[in-house]
């Protein structure tokens, strides 16, 4: 057994986190910043943070992840990291020539109270920021929130750093996709394009973290949200923020500061959430929905109806990030699967409340925990076994020990590919997700069924 020390009996823990279902804020800020075209993320702290975040993102995407660090020494930790940041900014613009440096803090620089606005201002005043180049920033202390809130803070940093309200609306709609895969961001844009819309999508990691092998290395790939779009977001006619945890802060900032009205939606996973997304987008943009989208929707309904008997009543243990887990719980419940154990590592009582509402509507009560960990999830599974585990790669240890089919979902996925290429948002994404779930469930049936009951046709 890999997790041989995990007991079935659950004891309350107040201090020790075991097998966390979250990581820290700065990596979220780094991921978000990679979704700006020509941007180099910068970690203001000791160099280990940057090395860890780059490694984790690289293992997840199998792509280069460039980011710089202030490389704090003990001296900088005592006297402040201002000099390190200013020289980092000078070196970065000289050597790597990005258009934007997106600085985020760490627990180290936050604990000593480094003042980012004052430091970046000093860099600008002393001529370290070339004409036409930008430095934006976000505060992301690791001891608050999780990687998800770090992402949210950097997305808000983009709005704060760039958005301008000229007083003249540009007719475009902002969509903040939240922490999803490059493939999902691409799919959001595809759906909007089908509706005839030229949206402002930020951040946008498609084309950055799912790149091509051509023999040429571009430190700043062609993808990513252009700075001009970020500036124009202040003149948009509305913002759709997908995910309360990931995207709402930036949208609300644009609402209050730039008078861009915002709507906060769930991530568009599955039928109902995608319906709400398309319907809201239609109304905000004032366009009609083309038949192609209605047809894609119909295909998803068709698959649900065709294979409903295999989904119905299947118990699921689900762990991941708040916005993703809420949307997926609703999707699974809508096809009569039963997510019975649900954990997110990110704190926030609203999560438990939302999940409670979804499962109550489906007619059952689930074990649910915000700020929980995978040790607890495993213990719940030992007490009430499930048919499927859905979560990041670390779940494979539980899946193997308990011999349960396992669907990789969320962050990080360190041992498979596909997430960067094939979306799970929208109707197409729903088809993709259900195909994978079905494959796991039926492969298990094929493995376990007796010879006399072995089926050719499902």
């Amino acid at each position, binding site marked *: 057994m890999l997790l041989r020390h995990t007991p079935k009996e659950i004891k309350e823990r107040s201090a020790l986190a075991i097998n966390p279902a979250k990581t820290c804020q700065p990596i979220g800020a780094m991921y978000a910043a990679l979704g700006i075209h020509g941007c180099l993320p910068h970690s203001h702290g000791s*160099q280990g943070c940057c090395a860890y975040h780059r490694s984790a993102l690289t293992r997840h995407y199998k792509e280069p992840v*460039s980011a710089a660090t202030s490389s704090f020494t*003990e001296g900088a930790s005592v006297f402040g990291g201002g000099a390190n940041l200013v020289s980092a900014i000078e070196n970065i613009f000289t050597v790597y020539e990005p258009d934007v440096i997106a600085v985020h803090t760490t627990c180290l620089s936050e604990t000593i109270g480094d003042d980012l606005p004052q430091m970046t201002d000093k860099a600008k005043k002393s001529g370290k920021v070339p004409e036409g180049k930008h430095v934006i920033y976000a505060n992301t202390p690791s001891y608050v929130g999780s990687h998800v809130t770090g992402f949210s803070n950097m997305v808000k940093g983009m709005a704060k750093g760039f958005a301008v309200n000229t007083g003249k609306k540009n007719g475009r709609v902002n969509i903040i996709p939240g922490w999803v895969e490059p493939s999902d961001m691409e799919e959001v844009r595809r759906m909007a394009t089908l509706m005839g819309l030229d949206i402002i999508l930020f951040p946008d990691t498609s084309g950055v973290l799912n790149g091509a092998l051509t023999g040429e290395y571009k430190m700043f790939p062609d993808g990513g949200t252009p700075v001009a779009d970020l500036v124009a977001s202040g003149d948009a006619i509305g913002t759709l923020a997908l995910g309360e945890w990931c995207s709402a802060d930036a949208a609300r900032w644009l609402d209050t500061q730039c008078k861009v009205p915002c709507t906060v939606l769930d991530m568009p996973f599955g039928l109902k959430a995608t319906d709400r997304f398309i319907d809201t987008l239609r109304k905000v943009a004032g366009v009609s929905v083309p038949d192609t989208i209605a047809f894609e929707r119909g295909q998803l309904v068709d698959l649900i109806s065709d294979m409903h008997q295999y989904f119905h009543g299947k118990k699921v243990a689900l762990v991941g990030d708040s916005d993703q887990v809420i949307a997926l719980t609703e999707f699974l419940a809508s096809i009569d699967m039963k997510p019975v154990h649900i954990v997110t590592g990110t704190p926030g009582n609203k999560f438990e409340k939302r999940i409670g509402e979804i499962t109550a509507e489906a007619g059952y009560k689930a074990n649910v925990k915000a700020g929980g960990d995978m040790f607890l999830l495993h213990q719940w599974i030992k007490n009430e076994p499930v048919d499927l585990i859905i979560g990041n790669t670390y779940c494979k240890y539980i899946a193997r020990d308990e011999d349960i089919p396992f669907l990789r979902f969320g962050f990080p996925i360190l041992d498979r590919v596909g997430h960067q290429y094939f979306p799970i948002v929208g109707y197409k994404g729903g088809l993709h997700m259900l195909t994978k779930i079905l494959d796991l469930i039926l492969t298990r049936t094929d493995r376990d069924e007796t010879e006399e009951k072995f089926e050719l046709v499902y």
Partner: protein
Amino acid sequence: MPSSAKKLVNWTPTDIKADMLAKYPPKVARKRASQILVNEALGNETPEISANVRTIPGIITMRGCTYAGCKGVILGPTRDIVNITHGPIGCGFYSWLTRRNQTDASAEGAENFMPYCFSTDMQDQDIIFGGEKKLQAAIQEAYDLFHPKAIAIFATCPVGLIGDDIHAVARKMKAKFGDCNVFAFSCEGYKGVSQSAGHHIANNKIFSEVVGENDAEKPGEFKINLLGEYNIGGDGFEIDRILKKCGITNISTFSGNSTYDQFASAHKADLSAVMCHRSINYVADMLETKFGIPWIKVNFIGAKSTAKSLRKIAEYFGDPGLTARVEEVIAEEMPAVEAVIDDVLPRTKGKTAMLFVGGSRAHHYQDLFAEMGMKTLAAGYEFAHRDDYEGRQVIPGLKVDADSRNIEEIEVKADEQRYAPRKTSEEMAKLEAAGLKFKEYDGLIPDMDHQTLVIDDLNQYEAEKLVEIIKPDVFCAGIKEKFSIQKLGIPMKQLHSYDSGGPYAGFQGAVNFYHEIDRLVNSKVWSYMKAPWQENPELSATYVWE
């Protein structure tokens, strides 16, 4: 003309160095110039390189931090210690199972905490009011849940800044439990200039808190410690297989596939064999000073190096039976190795490699490439010190700078009861006269060809330059470097984690490595990068039958 378009024949190493420095601001260029060396080593003259110096802010380094070196590298591979990271969640999360240290916990009742991540997950109120209470509660919860024989505490950056006394908490809990050793490491990420400081902090603490705790005699003959072997991809398993076959007893590996008891019993060995000089040479020194165990440098990377290292160990013990057995094992193992070399050599001979990894591997792996007829054009370490480049003779002259001053040094004296020289001074003198060298390591530079490049703390910009200008057939570094190199169409082999391969140590490991490098440098995939219409964009075409 862009630099990449020039042909290699036009570039001297001095040109390449100048090109790498050209774009830097003057201060950066000066500093990097002292860390980039065109190898002029001749005879006994080894040129000086600047190493173990600060990373430059903003320059994209390959290095990690002190916490990573301490918790990730040194203590990570020990399966029966509960390792609790005291800090916000990230550090514990990132060092959770990511280093591919394998461990054999198949014995009945064996403990294995390596698949677990333990953290105090500090929140803002812990930063404001102090985290000691939470740490104490976390240790208690770990003890109640698992009853381990040892619990280790690792400090992350904010812990040092807010002044949590982790050592006091550890002492208190150790006294409270009575049957569980609790010890703490002040390995905050901002200390030192690289992972190396973390190795030092880890090793010192293990030496002072654990080594010598178990005085029970260990069974077996020809007892050694294997120091600086981390069992990445199963290297340690292969080395243990060979040692066992020779009749040599490895009682303690620091720290691959290791257990608490191995550390506690290390003083019962009669020889320390050092693999990774950088991470652990000082432990070998301390074992000698305190317990009288001599040490030699070994290298099990490369079939010939493995044979040489086995012979060195046999020479030390001076037992005719052991010497004969070692020769038998080498004779038994080598034919399989040679058969694979014969197979791959026509495809690998004359190809070129670059190695930028670790504090020893960039040196050790050159032996494997040499066995395949491949030449190393450039190499360097991420976190090494000058002695790893130039040899141990420079150690007395190394200055302690501001960044190393606060890394704890421990004073070790001969143990009053247990110090016992394993050989008399006459025996040692005789062995030395016969050519066996103790406490000796000549470093990387003397082993590299004239006019090759030796580069300390290589960064992303310089790596890209090197690859564009020299176009090696394979580039070796870590995960962060892997895909930017491969985008340039050059295969990249991870030599920290071996991608998902290994073992590469010992005889079977050498065979694995030859196959892997053959696969990489002769892969068809590098020929697929251009579409037919990109290679031949003209529109008119003729049919083949015309």
